[in-house]
């Protein structure tokens, strides 16, 4: 879950010379000086990792076809590719979890350990997974020594002292006596990295480390990673966010269809060239979409909708044919607002209407019946029933339409699922295929298919492209766009600029308040600034296209959005939650 950043007072490691701190910049996607990159280590040393001719076949599928990869000491090497390109298999091979059919792996010039000698692999390479491999109820000190506790009586004092030394050595500011549960996501990652380093590993594989982090967390993580690189630690960085690749990495290797198609320095590589290497086709210009005709009648409306501790009374109006973005970082209340619309949370006050009719708040069945379809933020936590098939996952919301008298006829369910599979181009062996066997992008399509199964009048999607590759991203966003074009409306809640680009207009939320409204054509910097509660740089009055860019962009007869909170208005007298800061509570409250 997002939004678990550590308390700000605990952090002293970021804000170093290599990057802006989380509070002084406009987030990870804007304005980071690209020159803050330390060069890779001494070129004469043997590479931290060298893999040559790696080939791996699973049954009929060739997962890796003669892949070659070299990571030098102190280098941050990005590994990118679409879901299914072979990244995970390559990482499994490089960390000793999967034995390649052919090919060699060497670390620091020496051949890799025997397959199966887990301890020896651990001393050379470590993988920090998306899902934390720490034990939440043990202390940091114990986690650092996990599996390597001394024989005989454990001297807790000495253990903690040793842990403190290790953490200090790597500049990780975490209390060794704290329990992992109490730490932020990126702090857990630091602990995992520190653990790997104490085992002697000088190569760390980071498998989508930022997927569960908010902007400030990403900043802290990157600051830490840069510091470690300066000490000769090499990173293999896997991410779907090309922006992060550009920010952090020196070199990038692109995998496509089990082959390595490109290895090049990041510096000279444009985003389009990278996308082209990943997909094998020229990227469509991710331009802002031109406004499409006048919006239709109002479909979704909220009046003074509020939830204590999450968002202040909000008046929204979304019209047929519109895609509206709700942009806000973790803790902004944007997700809570979406969950309230979906009926998952009971609001403290106000009302929701769809097509003029009030919706009973706090009840998912009523929201569904009113025509609100919902795509939850985290497909693993709230989206998929992992034990069941694609068909069952897709038809979960339409149980009442698949047979008479409360029955579900398997033939109809299959037929329905097959239609959705075709409509959304879900790559699955069939309706009966287990949903866990699908790639991330296709799993996300299943979640969206479920939301669309009832042909909603309003589609509420929270981070609909979370953790999917660039091609699936386009497909998913295209689906959302088509829903609106077909006469419904959509609300996208996200802090991903790519998600928001397809919107007709974007509202920004900061600490539970709507701080601004942007018509299509906004500039990245100003939107990010509004999301972070900052004044837009230069307080732009007019965007390049001559369109009003800020504040005054309400559509004809649009929602009575309050004017932006004012460029420099600090969130001091925040009425939302003076005691409990929303960013500390969002996501943890039931």
């Amino acid at each position: 879950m997002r939004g678990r950043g550590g308390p700000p007072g605990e952090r002293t490691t970021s804000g170093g010379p290599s990057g802006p701190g989380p509070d002084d910049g406009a987030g990870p996607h804007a304005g980071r000086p690209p020159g803050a990159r330390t060069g890779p280590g001494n070129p004469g040393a043997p590479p931290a990792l060298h893999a040559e001719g790696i080939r791996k076949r699973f049954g009929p599928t060739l997962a890796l076809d003669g892949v070659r990869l070299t990571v030098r000491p102190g280098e941050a090497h990005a590994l990118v590719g679409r879901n299914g390109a072979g990244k995970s298999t390559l990482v499994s091979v490089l960390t000793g979890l999967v034995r390649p059919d052919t090919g060699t792996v060497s670390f620091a010039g020496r051949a890799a350990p025997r397959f199966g000698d887990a301890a020896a692999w651990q001393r050379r390479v470590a993988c920090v997974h998306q899902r934390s491999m720490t034990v939440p109820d043990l202390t940091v000190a114990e986690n650092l020594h996990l599996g390597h506790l001394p024989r005989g009586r454990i001297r807790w004092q000495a253990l903690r002292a040793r842990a403190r030394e290790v953490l200090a050595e790597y500049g990780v500011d975490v209390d060794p006596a704290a329990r992992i549960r109490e730490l932020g996501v990126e702090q857990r990652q630091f602990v995992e990295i520190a653990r790997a380093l104490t085992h002697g590993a000088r190569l760390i594989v980071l498998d989508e480390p930022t997927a569960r982090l908010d902007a400030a967390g990403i900043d802290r993580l990157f600051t830490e990673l840069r510091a470690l690189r300066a000490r000769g630690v090499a990173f293999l960085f896997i991410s779907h966010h090309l922006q992060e690749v550009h920010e952090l990495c020196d070199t990038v290797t692109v995998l496509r269809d089990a082959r390595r198609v490109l290895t090049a320095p990041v510096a000279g590589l444009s985003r389009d060239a990278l996308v082209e290497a990943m997909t094998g086709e020229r990227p469509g210009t991710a331009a802002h979409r031109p406004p499409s005709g006048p919006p239709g009648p109002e479909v979704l409306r909220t009046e003074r909708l509020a939830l204590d501790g999450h968002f202040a009374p909000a008046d929204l109006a979304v019209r047929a044919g519109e895609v509206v973005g709700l942009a806000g970082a973790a803790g902004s209340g944007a997700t809570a607002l979406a969950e309230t619309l979906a009926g998952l949370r009971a609001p403290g006050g106000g009302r929701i209407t769809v097509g003029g009719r009030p919706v009973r708040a706090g009840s998912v069945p009523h929201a569904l019946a009113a025509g609100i379809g919902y795509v939850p933020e985290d497909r693993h936590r709230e989206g998929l029933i992992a034990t069941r098939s694609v068909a069952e996952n897709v038809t979960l919301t339409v149980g009442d339409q698949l047979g008479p008298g409360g029955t579900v006829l398997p033939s109809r369910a299959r037929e329905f699922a097959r239609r959705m599979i075709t409509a959304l181009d879900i790559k699955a062996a069939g309706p009966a295929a287990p949903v866990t066997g699908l790639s991330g992008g296709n799993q996300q399509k299943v979640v969206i298919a479920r939301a669309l199964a009832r042909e909603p009048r309003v589609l509420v999607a929270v981070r609909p492209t979370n953790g999917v590759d660039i091609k699936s991203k386009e497909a998913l966003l295209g689906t959302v766009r088509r829903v609106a074009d077909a006469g419904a409306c959509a609300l996208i809640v996200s802090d991903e600029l790519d998600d928001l680009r397809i919107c007709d207009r974007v509202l920004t939320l900061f600490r539970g308040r709507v701080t601004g409204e942007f018509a299509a054509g906004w500039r990245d910097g100003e939107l990010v600034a509004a999301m972070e509660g900052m004044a837009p740089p230069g307080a732009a009055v007019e965007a390049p296209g001559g369109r009003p860019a800020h504040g005054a962009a309400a559509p004809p007869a649009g929602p009575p959005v309050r004017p932006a909170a004012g460029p420099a208005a600090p969130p001091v007298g925040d009425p939302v939650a003076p005691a409990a800061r929303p960013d500390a509570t969002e996501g943890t409250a039931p």
Partner: protein
Amino acid sequence: MTETAAPPDAGATTPSSAPRARTVRPGRWRDFSLVPVILVLGVIGFIVSPAFLTRDNLVGVVQQSTELGLLVLGEALILISGRMDLSLESTIGLAPVVALWLVMPAHGDRFTGLELLPAWTAVPLCLAVGAAIGTVNGFLILTLRVNGFIATLGMLTALRGLQVGLSEGRSIGDVPPSFAYLGGATWLGVPAAVWICLALFAAGGAALGYLRHGRALYAVGGNPEAARAAGIRVDRLTWIVLAVGGLLAAFAGILYTGHYGAVSASQGNGWIFQVFAAAVIGGISLKGGRGTLFGALTGVLTLQLVINVMTLAGVPPLWTQFLNGAIIIVALVISRFAGGGKQD
């Protein structure tokens, strides 16, 4: 998660090229994985004793399976929806005792009841008590949000104690004829209890497979948050399932009482282990969201056959408890490998 992601990741590169025949998954046969075990047990029984393959013996095995079977049916529904209820083994004893206590004559030589209600109400009363116990479990687990395992373990002990207190630790005989009928009657040459049990399993299986609320149980057990986000009333459904579980346990109590003609003070004592063992051997996941009632039924039959074969083989009674536990563990190991997947 690299290690688990690797095979699907690889598979995802050429999903459309996978031949259609491969969609017949081994999982489809998982429900039948105990059928060969049952056949093997039959052969062993036939070798061990000529009395095994007689009609009387087989009918006896099946009838003894009915009471355990109904408990397993209730527990399976609860497990599939991601909860557990240990108190079922006390409900099977307490529900009949409470019903009889309310209807039995206030003056008699053995057990004195309150005689508040006419004798014919004993069966509905018993079922109502079972459902009420399930509802209390639901209140503890869903409203007070206490740990379900400990809460129902507490209920198990408390209800057993309540039964002992009400019945003064004695067996209750002379039950009303309406109460004894179902457990003792024979329809078409087979005990009525067997027909009823089969019918209930069939009804349960059909509900799980073909009713939207039945399908929803799998969703609730597999991922309650996703089920809630998809508009399923998770708490209400769980509550109903817990009540149905109690109801089935009470019904098992009626059959058991009719079968033996009396409510024994230790009715159901120690059964919960067998109930869980049968469910898990039958492929029901203790984590919820997985398993079928057919599998659970084969689990029950397997356990009962093992006990029967042991009895026929003349195992000394002092050793049956040890062997019973050991054989359940062996059966678990076998079904773990026969069923393919991990048991959880």
